[in-house]
């Protein structure tokens, strides 16, 4: 597998060069933003307290295991990502507003998401590994530069700004074609599914979701 060191303010060429399954290490500033930050910035229209994307084009779907010391300094232990699919509703607007080129998280998005708004924005998705290699990623934090909105959102949802020094590993999970690494793997695994399920039978009592018609019975 290829190993690549990438800036958190990457050039278009550097992004175009990434291939699905490449292993990436990040250098530069990265900020955490998940539902709390998205809601505050996009729905409550609060001013984003960073210059984006000039300071950073890397959005980490992460809450760190960290504390703010009484003297205002920070201790950051482990960092890992949370599942990104839940943030699809905010990401198009977030990307347009912040120019994010690297979305870093857990589990990736769908190829539909990639084609609809990642590719047009020149952005790709990097997945954390495991999950999660929290201690290894923690070692890649050279410094915690700032934490924003911790009083409004709590430590877990706050916007942490971290300086990455060869932070990784991450895996390239989408490319500028909008292809999706996880969907490629799903398709390979799907070939075997019928054999694994052979002999099993559906439950006697169904659930809504197995039928989307709410006028149906579930028996």
């Amino acid at each position, binding site marked *: *597998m290829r190993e690549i060191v990438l800036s958190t303010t990457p050039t278009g060429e550097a992004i175009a060069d990434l291939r699905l*399954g490449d*292993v990436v290490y990040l250098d530069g500033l990265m900020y955490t933003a998940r539902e*709390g930050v998205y809601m505050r910035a996009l729905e409550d229209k609060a001013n984003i307290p960073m210059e984006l994307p000039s300071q950073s084009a890397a959005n980490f779907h*992460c*809450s*760190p*295991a*960290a*504390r703010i010391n009484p003297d205002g300094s920070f*201790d950051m*232990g*482990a*960092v*890992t*990502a*949370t*599942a990104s699919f839940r943030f699809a509703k905010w990401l198009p607007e977030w990307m347009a507003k912040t120019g994010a080129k690297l979305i870093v998280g*857990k*589990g*990736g998005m769908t190829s539909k998401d990639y084609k609809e708004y990642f590719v047009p924005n020149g952005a790709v998705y990097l*997945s954390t*590994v*495991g*999950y*999660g*290699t*929290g*201690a*290894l*990623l*923690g*070692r890649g934090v050279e410094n915690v530069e700032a934490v924003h909105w911790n009083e409004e*959102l*709590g*430590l*877990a*949802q706050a916007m942490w700004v971290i300086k990455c020094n060869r932070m990784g*590993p991450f*895996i390239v999970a989408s490319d500028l074609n909008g292809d999706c690494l*996880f969907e490629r*793997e*799903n398709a*390979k*695994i799907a070939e*075997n*599914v019928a054999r*694994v*399920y052979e*002999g*099993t*039978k*559906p*439950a*006697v*009592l169904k*659930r809504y979701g197995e039928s989307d018609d709410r006028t149906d019975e579930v028996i």
Partner: protein
Amino acid sequence: MIPISLIQSTAEVLMDKAAIEIPQDYLDGLQHAAKTEDGDLSSFVLKAMLDNYEAAKEDRRAMCGDTGVPRWFVKMGNDARVEGGMVALEAALRRATANATNGVPLRPNRVHPLWRTDHDNNVGIGAPEIEYGFEPEGEWIDLITVHKGGLFGTDYRMLFPSDGIQGIKRFYLDSLMAFGKRGLACQPAIIGIGLGGSKDICMTLGKRASTLRIVGSRNSDPRIAEMEDEFKDLGNSIGMGAMGFVGKNMVIDCNIEVGYCHTGGMPMSVHAFCLSSRRAVARIHADGRVEHRTDPDWFTDYQRRETVEWEPQREAAE
């Protein structure tokens, strides 16, 4: 009489160990998995996880940034006495949880479900959960902390006797497929299955099967033990590995626990503990000795008893 200060200080050590040190039984299981894995992406993932455990231990930092939702299982010998009683014990465990969240540090994951209030210390309404078990003899108290992830890899379904073993297999596979894709379940994991009980206890049984039994343990009912072997192999035959990549290792072990249920039903739950299977255990003796271990040893013959009375000594004498 066990001093309350010793309970709190031991609990703080356990919080730290659970977050940082991968239990040996799970590590052995994952190392074995790493040897057999041949998918290149999933092999890379397992190798990175093994490096990660080393880094966590070396740096004394949490294994994973998501440090789960800390909870407590307290087991007491019938003759154990705690200074200040059980209300004092609960306060000590809440203090230890809050102190360790800031101290390790852990991620303050616990928030109000509606108002999203975060006390930044993993303590709140009903948090941490504290559950109890008792054993017929002894003056000791076992403190067990488990920091399981809280979002994916768990499901419940009411099955019926007519669903049979093939229905159980189907729901087991459905759960692995649903949460295994893209690695949402953070597999390969210890999978716990709860069968029977009332609806809430069915969930409890499965959760305890995944978190309070170690890799390589087997249910004391030999037919259930056979099912555990079979279900482990079934899960690993899907062709899915770490992160949902093509691979051979989805299930490090499968543990099944049962409880008597309504005659018309066969409720079932499935739980996946994660790649950072966080659990730590200490026994505090009445004389103040503290013994640390990683096997909760929760499911004793007493916990699985079937009869009205518990009289094993008389049975042994007969």
